[in-house]
């Protein structure tokens, strides 16, 4: 049976015969977001995994702080921080196999780095010396997508193509709560469900689309409920509970990989920082609200669990922080070097071969650069 024949086949339906095409009950998200830390389920969690998550979260928090600092030093043009959302960012990268693909949005450089991409290459877009700084095929990470939700159909197409070729590949696509209002979100989920493509959609509901709260974004019972309309399961998870996010995403990836089709996961989290360093969050939310969320911090939740169970002590905490500092120092040092720029690169990859028109413009720029170099030489 071909991939397409596995879709619902055309069946003539005489007038009175109507029945739901899918039973909606198993697709519905649970009433409460899934939680592991601080619950009985935590005892069953793999200690090694929890320790790994903890180390990555601490490093992720430090990475966000360092990247934000680099904007103040003029080394990054802009940085949309994922502080407070590290559990989602890290888990999204960790649940994937090497052959799988990650489709990040612009706020997800931490997930990109956690997947193995060089942080300097991950930040190239935000430094501004090129658009995508990494080779997407090296770690199977699609370019960071700035137009919201437009990367979601790409994930569907890639997962579908892999399935057509008989490859066991899952695509995990990341989007925010604001992005779920975009048409591409709808189209991607619909295509994925119709094609039964092995895609996991991870919505990080961090409360705000820049300044606009979720209440102005949607009237859906939850974003996870949107899945039901497409005929795929929707799952709700506490996005600050790293163990829960890891578990729900692992299940979703397994579901997709085993031919079960796509899954929509809504992770409830909070954008602790402003939208970017250029944003002023005090214009649209109060400090008290931010403080409440800081009490539900992903690192603290995990640290509490690990220390309570004797899996982490002061030395362990210090070691994790030291690792993070080492990473930050290296990132700082490398980002403090000016990137090598070659203006002639502008014409290098517009087409496989430059058009005659681009060759003319290329020659013009080359002449300008030569004249510039000559006049600088004269002045010296």
């Amino acid at each position, binding site marked *: 049976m071909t991939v397409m024949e596995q879709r619902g086949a055309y069946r003539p339906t005489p007038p009175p015969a109507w029945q739901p095409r899918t039973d909606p009950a198993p697709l519905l998200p649970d009433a409460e977001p899934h939680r592991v830390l601080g619950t009985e389920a935590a005892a069953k969690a793999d200690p090694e995994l929890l320790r790994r998550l903890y180390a990555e979260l601490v490093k992720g928090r430090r990475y966000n702080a360092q990247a934000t600092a680099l904007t103040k030093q003029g080394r990054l043009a802009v940085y949309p921080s994922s502080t407070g959302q590290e559990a989602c960012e890290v888990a999204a990268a960790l649940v994937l196999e090497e052959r799988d693909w990650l489709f990040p949005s612009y706020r997800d450089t931490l997930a990109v780095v956690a997947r193995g991409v060089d942080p300097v290459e991950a930040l190239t877009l935000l430094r501004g010396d090129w658009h995508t700084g990494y080779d997407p*095929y090296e770690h199977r990470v*699609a370019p960071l997508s700035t137009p919201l939700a437009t990367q979601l159909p790409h994930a569907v197409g890639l997962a579908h193509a892999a399935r057509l070729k008989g490859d066991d590949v899952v695509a995990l696509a990341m989007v925010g709560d604001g992005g779920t209002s975009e048409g*591409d979100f709808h189209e991607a989920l619909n295509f994925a469900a119709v094609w039964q493509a092995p895609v996991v959609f991870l919505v990080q509901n961090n409360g705000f689309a820049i300044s606009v709260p979720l209440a102005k974004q949607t009237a859906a019972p939850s974003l996870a409920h949107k899945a039901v309309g497409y005929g795929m399961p929707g799952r709700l998870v506490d996005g600050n509970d790293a163990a829960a996010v890891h578990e729900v995403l692992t299940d979703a990836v397994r579901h997709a990989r085993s031919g079960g089709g796509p899954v929509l996961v809504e992770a409830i989290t909070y954008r602790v920082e402003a939208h970017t360093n250029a944003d002023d969050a005090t214009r649209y939310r109060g400090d008290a609200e931010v403080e409440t969320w800081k009490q539900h911090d992903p690192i603290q939740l995990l640290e509490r669990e690990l220390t309570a169970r004797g899996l982490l002590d002061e030395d362990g905490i210090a070691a994790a922080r030291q690792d993070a500092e080492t990473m930050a120092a290296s990132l700082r040092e490398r980002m403090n070097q000016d990137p090598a720029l070659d203006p002639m690169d502008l014409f290098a990859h517009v087409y*496989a071969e430059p058009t005659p028109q681009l060759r003319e413009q290329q020659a013009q720029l080359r002449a300008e650069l030569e004249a510039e170099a000559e006049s600088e030489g004269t002045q010296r």
Partner: protein
Amino acid sequence: MTTVAVKPATMAQALTRALRDAMADDPSVHVMGEDVGTLGGVFRITDGLAKEFGEDRCTDTPLAEAGILGTAVGMAMYGLRPVVEMQFDAFAYPAFEQLVSHVSRMRNRTRGKMPLPVTIRIPYGGGIGGVEHHSDSSEAYYMATPGLHVVTPATVADAYGLLRAAIASDDPVVFLEPKRLYWSKDSWNPEEPAPVEPIGRAVVRRQGRSATLITYGPSVPVCLEAAEAARAEGWDLEVVDLRSLVPFDDETVAASVRRTGRAVVVHESGGFGGPGGEIAARVTERCFHYLEAPVLRVAGFDIPYPPPMLERHHLPGVDRILDAVGRLQWEAEG
């Protein structure tokens, strides 16, 4: 020497054959769009492909153009060579963001690591009595987007050759099919299909000495008809079929205008901000000292595409073209 009977074929048949041959030659070629499978497309261009290659290779998608092109991007990322069909010119607009923000830029964005060999077939133009949203000439939007090739055939043989070239291209190609020429016939031997035409070369369809008509797609036959009619006025008109709007063949166009000294650009698309302005500027920049008169444009009016019962007043026709030729300052020669 055996002579193969050369039968008249339609442009639609040539396009179907091009898709079929491309799919047979390269298993990574996938056709997708609305109604392209079981039905064979509303213009029947994909007729028989689902049957021959299966639904995995020729796929009826959900009705969502951004989704069609967006998923095609992902398929191309994974090494496939998607050929998407947009059902009509004006139905392609929902896919515009995917086209501009991703399809056109992915190669550049990734420093050449992630080229997207996607062909976007779009039936375009008027003259078929279509109701609103079925007759747009949207080429100017695509021309203004760096990173895309924009190609449009005017003959049966070119329909085959250019579509094969578009599918073989490692760059994204917007392939505009002049829908009113779908049923035009030409002597074409499907057993020996025309060679794959390189993208970016214009061709002189008719040689002449008096003036050059620069045109493409659906306006090519109109210009050829005008050139025949012009003989009665004593004008011997040259007709250049651009075939490719991006890249633009400055060489062929400028060589023709330098020979004739006069030029009129003809297209259905509106004149203001339309392709003709760019073409006239390019010709003037290259041929200023050869020109006997300003380059003129015969274009659609700058109005929303009219209802079918009025479209004949909008479309550039023989008379309007001859009027423009008559305004090329011939009195100076007398």
